[in-house]
Every structure is written in structure tokens, then in C-alpha cells.
């Protein structure tokens, strides 16, 4: 084992670029550790944990770049360093579509694009609020992808946005579609009459994807950030978003997506719904049906249900079936016969947080006792993140797994290690996986995992078992990754590709329960 640590002074790169680069390097043969990061205190302590914090690295400041590699041979180390150089150098040369190079300040950006109306902000959380405030003061709508913004700052920003009549989507907002333009993590969705306001990124993705699959479309999909319905924020952005969609002539039906909010916030939202003359679907996962229906809104307990309800409100003649198709039933029947008695549990490894929550809700409704790191109920909370027991659903994009690493939607390979572990467990009856397509996501998410999936299946066979895998591809036919090709790769590896996260979850339940649908 050999290692090398280099500090480049005054060479700032954004963390998304660096983390996905680190992810790519780690995936290379012979590489034990590879960290390319700015020398923040957190990154330095992460380096310390893997014994790569040299004295020079310790002295480095937030504007300095650290490249640390540990690998089997000097040659591999040099190879990695060359890759880093190429990746970061190419980035510098990058010029924008209209020929204007990148700029270094907000005034310069406005000079270069005087008609700008939206700022997408993905800077480290501690600085994000300041950038967002400046953007709002310049009259720009804001999509704030950054997380780790204090709740006080969030409130201040949202009040400022409210005063100025500007969107403040976020902090921690992963997805939005404004005027058919996908921002950050978003799918290519048909245009239509449904307007969405969502406090969840993958929740928004799934609802919009399912609407698209039903042959309908959306006007706008406004993200609010996960904390908007927190009591301290009071749903400012969801209320503003709903009002904007109520005023928007193109929007016929409004869909709200969130985890169930605290009672006072829910009351505020429901109160506002009363004033809206358009139909409203409230998709509060595991929410309060009675209260919602009492204000004349339609309640949807799951994401798929929100999409279906919205479509049937837009077009009452739409044919919507929640039945499983025969092919799926046949497949379940066939694989169930191949399971050993010991194979009893669903193991779900998700990239999408709200997809994990939806799966949990669906499995619970079918009587399964599930543990998960997204659970809110005490009895469902997972004890040990690194050990799955019984039915387990893991959101691999949660902070628990992503500290100093890219999100698995950007770098799906980071899920592979856990995938093999779950596959080796003789109690695993079925693996449940999601893959997100669309803008922001990896260019070939299935390709990053497919070899490992094949390996997992083979290992099971070698151990005298059969391992069924159900996957869901959250994406549309027009997404940039080519849905059909992604699907094909999974099918060829013997993975069952479900048409929704809900269907994938239901199939997994059926397999684990060894039930054969009538």
C-alpha cells in the first residue's frame, strides 16, 4: 500500500464536482482511499480518520484543494493523480453554451445575463443563506439546493421572498420544474394541467413521473425544501406556491406533497385550501385523511395515489388501474417457488428518501413489520445501520451514509457494497432497489451497479439460493439517460423492473410473504 497527499493552494472547486470525482476514483481497481476535497475542518477530520492528514494538509485552508490517494502501487497513485488533473482541468476550460465563460461574483453574473430570473444555489450550507439573500435582493427567484442552512435563516429568506413575490425553493430542495425546465434533480415531464408543490425531492420526481406515465402532464413543480412545513417555518413556501398555482391559468389541479406536518401548520395549509377554487390533492404520506377531506380536498396516502387522484381530477374519463398486471403476478409466483424457507425478508436499498418512506408505508399497510432509517414511529426505527434485521429499508442517501461522500443519485456505485452484503444474507428473500433518472442524476445509474447485481445473483446461486431482485426506474422515456436502455440492462440481468415504486414495494411484499396472488 502506498499513498500520496497533495495540497493545491487557492484552487477552489465545488463539492458536488469533487465528491463525484472522489466516487469515480474509489471505484477504480487498486484504489483503497481517494479523497479530493476542499480543506474544510470536516474534510480534514475525515482525512484524519483514514490516516491521510499530513501536516501540510492540516495547515491548508478552505480555499485549498487536498488530493489524497492510497492505493496498491505507486503506478495506481500516479494514474489517479493524472485523472484528477484531467477532470479538474477540463472543468476549468468549460465554457457555457452562449460562449460566456464562468464568472466569479453575482454582479458579474447579472452583467453577463441581465435578464436572469432564477438563481440555483448549491454552495456549502454555512454560506448559502447569504448568497440566497443577495439573489433575492437582486429580484431573482431562488432554488436553494444547499442543505445545512439554519432554520432561522430559512425563515428569514422565505419571509423576504414572500415580501418580494419570489420563490424560495429550499434549502435542501433537490427538485423543481419551472416552465418545463428541470432544475437540479428532475425528470423530463410532459406539459399538462397539474401543478405540484412538494416538500420532498424524490417525492416530487415520483409523482411527476407517474403523471407522465399515465399520459398526462404538469404546469409547474415547485419544491419547498424538506423543512417548509416545520412549525418554525409554517409552510410559507407551500402556501405561496399553492397561491401562485391557484392564480396560474394553465394549472387546473394542484397537488401538495409532504410528510404530515404538525397540526398548526396543517391547519394553515387546509385553511388556505378552502380558499382555492381549483381541486387540490393533498399527498401527505400517512396523513390525516379526515381533516383533509373535511376542507374539500382529495387525500392521497402515497405518491402513486397522489398522481392517480390528480390525473382523475384533470380527466375524469382517464383509465387508472391499481391492479398488478398478470406478468408481474406470474413472475412472483415463479420466483416464490425457488425461495428457501429461510428467505423471508425484504431488503430495500434506496437512493430516494421519499421512495423509502412510500415503500415503508405500503409494506406496513400489508402487515409487515419493517425497520428503516427514515421511520418516524419508534418501533420502526432501525437500531444498527450497518446490520439489517428482518424487513429493512435503507435510504442510502441519508446523512448517515453520505458524510463526505456523494449522494447515491449522483454516484450509485456507493450502494454496491451494501448490495452484496444483503445478497449474502440467507434470510434475504428479495432485494428492492430504486434508480433515479433525469437531470442531475448519474448518466448511467444502472450501469454503475449492474455487474454487482449479476455478482450478487451468482453468489446466491453458488450458495444454493435464488435471489429475486425488484427494481424501480424513476424516470420517463424522454429522460436524458435513455429509459429503455437502462431497463434493458436490468432485465437482461434477471431483475424485475416495476412500473412504480408502489408496485415494486407490493411485489417485494408478496415475495417475502410467499403469497401467490389469486
Amino acid at each position, binding site marked *: 500500500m502506498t499513498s500520496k497527499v497533495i495540497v493545491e493552494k*487557492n484552487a*477552489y472547486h*465545488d463539492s*458536488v*464536482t469533487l465528491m*463525484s470525482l472522489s466516487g469515480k476514483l474509489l471505484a477504480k481497481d487498486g484504489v483503497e482511499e481517494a479523497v479530493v476535497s476542499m480543506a*474544510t475542518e470536516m474534510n480534514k477530520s475525515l482525512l484524519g480518520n483514514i490516516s491521510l492528514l499530513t501536516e501540510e494538509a492540516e495547515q491548508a*485552508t*478552505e*480555499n485549498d484543494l487536498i488530493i489524497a490517494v492510497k492505493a496498491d502501487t505507486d503506478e495506481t497513485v500516479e494514474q489517479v493523480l493524472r485523472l484528477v488533473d484531467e477532470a479538474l482541468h477540463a472543468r476549468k476550460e468549460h465554457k*457555457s*453554451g*452562449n460562449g460566456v*465563460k*464562468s*464568472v*466569479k*461574483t*453575482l454582479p*458579474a*453574473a447579472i452583467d*453577463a*445575463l441581465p*435578464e*436572469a*430570473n*432564477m*438563481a*440555483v*444555489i*448549491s*454552495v*456549502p450550507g454555512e*454560506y448559502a443563506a447569504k*448568497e440566497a439573500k443577495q*439573489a433575492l435582493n437582486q*429580484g431573482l*427567484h431562488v432554488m436553494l*439546493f*444547499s442543505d445545512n442552512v439554519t432554520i432561522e435563516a430559512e425563515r428569514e429568506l422565505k419571509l423576504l421572498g414572500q415580501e418580494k*413575490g419570489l*420563490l424560495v425553493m429550499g434549502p435542501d430542495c433537490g427538485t423543481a420544474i*419551472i*416552465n418545463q*425546465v*428541470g*432544475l*437540479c434533480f428532475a425528470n423530463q415531464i410532459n406539459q399538462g394541467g397539474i401543478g405540484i408543490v412538494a416538500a420532498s425531492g424524490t417525492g416530487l420526481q415520483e409523482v411527476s413521473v407517474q403523471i407522465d406515465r399515465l399520459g398526462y402532464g404538469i*404546469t409547474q413543480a415547485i419544491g419547498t425544501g424538506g423543512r417548509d412545513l416545520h412549525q418554525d417555518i409554517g409552510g410559507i413556501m407551500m402556501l*405561496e*406556491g399553492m*397561491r*401562485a*398555482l391557484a*392564480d*396560474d391559468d*394553465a394549472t387546473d389541479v394542484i397537488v401538495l406533497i409532504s410528510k404530515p406536518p404538525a397540526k398548526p401548520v396543517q391547519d394553515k395549509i387546509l385553511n388556505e385550501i378552502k380558499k382555492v377554487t381549483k381541486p387540490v390533492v393533498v399527498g401527505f404520506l400517512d396523513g390525516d385523511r379526515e381533516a383533509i377531506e373535511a376542507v374539500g380536498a382529495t387525500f392521497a396516502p402515497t405518491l402513486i395515489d397522489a398522481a392517480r387522484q390528480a390525473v382523475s381530477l384533470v380527466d375524469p374519463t382517464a383509465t387508472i388501474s391499481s391492479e398488478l398486471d398478470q406478468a408481474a403476478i406470474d413472475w412472483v409466483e415463479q420466483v416464490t417457488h425457488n425461495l428457501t424457507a429461510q428467505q423471508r425478508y425484504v431488503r430495500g436499498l434506496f437512493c430516494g428518501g421519499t421512495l423509502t418512506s412510500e415503500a415503508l408505508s405500503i409494506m406496513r399497510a400489508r402487515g409487515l413489520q419493517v425497520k428503516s432509517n427514515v421511520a418516524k414511529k419508534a418501533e420502526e426505527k432501525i437500531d444498527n445501520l450497518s446490520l439489517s434485521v428482518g424487513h429493512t429499508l435503507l435510504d442510502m442517501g441519508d446523512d448517515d451514509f453520505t458524510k463526505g461522500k456523494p449522494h447515491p443519485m449522483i454516484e450509485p456505485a456507493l450502494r454496491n457494497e451494501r448490495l452484496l452484503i444483503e445478497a449474502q444474507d440467507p434470510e434475504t428473500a428479495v432485494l428492492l432497489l430504486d434508480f433515479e433518472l433525469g*437531470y*442531475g442524476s448519474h448518466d448511467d445509474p444502472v450501469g454503475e451497479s449492474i455487474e454487482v447485481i449479476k455478482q450478487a445473483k451468482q453468489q446466491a446461486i453458488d450458495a444454493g439460493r435464488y435471489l429475486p431482485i425488484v427494481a424501480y426506474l424513476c424516470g420517463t422515456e424522454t429522460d*436524458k439517460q435513455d429509459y429503455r436502455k437502462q431497463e434493458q440492462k436490468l432485465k437482461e440481468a434477471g431483475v424485475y423492473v416495476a412500473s412504480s415504486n408502489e408496485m415494486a414495494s407490493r411485489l417485494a411484499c408478496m415475495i417475502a410473504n410467499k403469497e401467490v396472488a389469486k
Partner: protein
Amino acid sequence: MSRIDQIFQQRLQVINIGAAKFKEDLDLQNIDSIQYDWRPPAGGNPQLIEALDWLQNHEQIEMANQEAIKRIKDAHPYLVDIEPAVKVIPGMHAKKILHSGPPITWENMCGPAKGAIIGALIYEGLADNEQEAARLAESGEIEFAPANEHSAVGPMAGIISPSMPVHVVENRTHGNKAYCTVNEGLGKVLRFGANSEDVITRLKWIETVFAPALKAALQQSNGIDLKSITSQALHMGDECHNRNKASTSLFYREIIDYFLQTDLDKSDLRQVIEFIKNNEHYYLNLSMPACKSALDAAHGIPYSTVVTTMARNGVEFGIRVSGLDQKTWFTAPANFVKGLFFPGYSEADAAPDLGDSTITETMGIGGFAMGGSPAIVQFVGGEVEDAIDYSEQMYQITVGENSNYSIPALNFRGGAYGIDIRKVVDTNILPVINTGMAHKEAGIGQVGAGIVHPPFACFEQALLTFAAKYRGEQNE
């Protein structure tokens, strides 16, 4: 007040702040967008960020800075006279030698500065040879001081000794004066630390033949308008720091008739005008005091965060700020210049950044105006596009645009001027300087030219001191 739903009727145009990946996906969707390569303000230093928060959007500071740039722009420098330093420079005396950059002691000076001081002591007749001169310099008998603290500036070593004739530049708007020696030309010259006999002989000639002739010519004139020459030269490919071809020619055109009006001996006259004609950097030593007279006028405005001095002594880089005391320098080790070397020289031969000529960048010309001076790009390395980028970037760290000094290549936009320490710290963008490089050993001369930046630390210290001073005052 706008309403959120109004954006639904507009074409989306996006500023992407941070992860460039999101911008790539906007390009895929054919959306107009611009990438803002964000960096942590103030290098992520919490103490600086806290100070910045207090200093930004501060009305008194904004007003003071507007006043500072108004003074800089309004200043109208004329060359009015040439006189021995000791006669005109305030505080100058027979045993005092001025040098470039922030204060420094003899032991700590760089090679070229020491060489030039030795030359100056021999020239003054205070020493007969190098050893004697060095001993005298060490003895403590000679007082050394920064030219910048004496309304004066000097290129490279920037040595001004009592008998040296200095151009007297008068800022007729504000009434203050600035001083600078006569440029000796290229090759073996005092400002690069050369002190051989021919150097001393030339200095003597300047004192005894050239200066009286120029004085006589200037007496015929009503002063030579330097603001006008600089302004025109900027439209003729000069940036008036490293390229002075056009400005020297313009000066020559202005002064020549006044020379002819004097009753000077014809052969002296021919030598004098040939000296100007053959030295294409003649105007540097007029450009610099012209800038100096404008910036001195803008010094001492309470609450102003505008930089009024940037100067280097070959060891340290120093800046001064309008709203802080005149004697308060913020210094850090000078950087090495990056650029092209003359044949036979390499980086190992160069002294660190040296000279007061950065007064031109402080004024908003020199490196700041490089976009209008494509010819200089060849000299310092890089491409014309880089030069334009540099000039454009400087708008991010300055208070205003000087329409008197406009840049043709930027559609005649007024040059960026009035460096604001807050903006430098906030954006991490440093002023850009183009400059010559001196050999680290005395007397060898220029080894190349290139681009250099001040150390960031100068601006950090200035910002903290500034915040401490004015917050203290407000709390009283």
C-alpha cells in the same frame, strides 16, 4: 411588488451558483444560464466574514468611497517643473534616501535596492566606492524612508537621493504635488541596482544637462497636461505601466516646441531630446507621479475602504487604505512574478516583486487596463483574451469606472478603479499587476516581465484593522 406566478409567463434564465453539473443540465435543455464559480468569501475565514458582514452595505463607507473615486477621477495632474529632490520633496534632507515600497531597513533590503543605494551614495559624493557606500548605509547615518510617504514614487528600487532631479507634478484640482525621478532607460540602470561608473555618469548628466533643459522648457509652458496624455495613450495601445510607447511619443510632441523656445545650446538640446526619444519608458516616470497625485488626494477620507497605495520593496508588498492612517501599511512577503524571461535568465534569477509602479494599477491603469493594450500581452506572456478577462475582472473589486481612462477593447467602458478592500476579501479576486522583473543581484538589470498579484494577507489585515477602528468609533 411582483407576484410569484409572473415567472410562469417568462423565459427561464438561470444563474447557477456552485455545482457546475447543474449548469450542464441547463445547457442540455437549451436554457440561457451563466455559471458563477462560487468560492467561500474571505477564504472561509470566519473572523474576516464577520468583519465583512459589518462593513458591507454600510452607508457611510459607500459615501466615503464615492468621494474617494470622485477625487481620483477629478484629479488633474500637470508636469510643471523639475527640481532637485532635496529642494522640493517635503521632509527630504541631505542624508535621506527614499526607496520604493513599504518601510524597510538596510539589512533587510533586496539586492537591487542595496545596489541602487550604493550607487546613489556614490552619486551624491557621500562615498567613493562600493565598500565605503555599503559601510555608510549600514552605519545608521543615512535615513531610509518610503517614497510613498513623501508624495513621491519610484520604479523598481525607486531610489531618490537628495541631488536627484525629480519631475514635479501638480494636481491642479486639489493643489497637491507628486514627485518622481527621470527614467534612465533600459539596460544597466540604477533602478535595477546597477551602480557602475556609466550609471553614475548618466545620473550626473541628467542632473547637469537634462534637468536644466527640461526646466527651461517647462518654464515656457503652462505645464504639460498628463491626464490628457494618459487618456489618449490608453486609446493607442499603452496601459502606461509597462507599455509607454504612445504616451512617450505624445509627451515628446507636447514638449518639443517648448524645448525649441529655450536658448539652449544646440548640441545639448539634441542630446536632451534624443534622450527622451530613445527611451520609450520616459513617460513611466510621469505616469507614476500623475497617478500618485490623484491617489494622494483621495487619501485620508474617513470610512473609505479604497486602496490609495500598492507598492513593493522587493521583500514585502504593502498597501495603504484611504480611511486609515497614512503611516499604516499592511504588508506581506512579496510574490514572485510569473511570466516570460529574457534569454539566459530563469525564475531562479528573479527578485521578488519590486517597485512603486503599482501606483498605476492602484489608479486603474497598468494591469487593470491590459485589455486595451494587446501589445503588452506578448511581453508578459498569455493571450489577448486573458488580458481582456483581467480588465473585466477588475470591475468586481473596484468602486467605479473611470470614463476619463476608457478602454477601447471593452467598448470604451471606463476602466475599473478605486480598489475596495472589502470586495477583494469578499471575492478572493486580487488586483492584477503587470510588471518587469529585476535580477535578484544588484546591477544585472531586468530579467523578464510578467503578471503578479499582491498577497491576499495585505487585504485581510487591512480589512480587520479597518473594521476594528470604525466599529470602535461607533461604540464610543
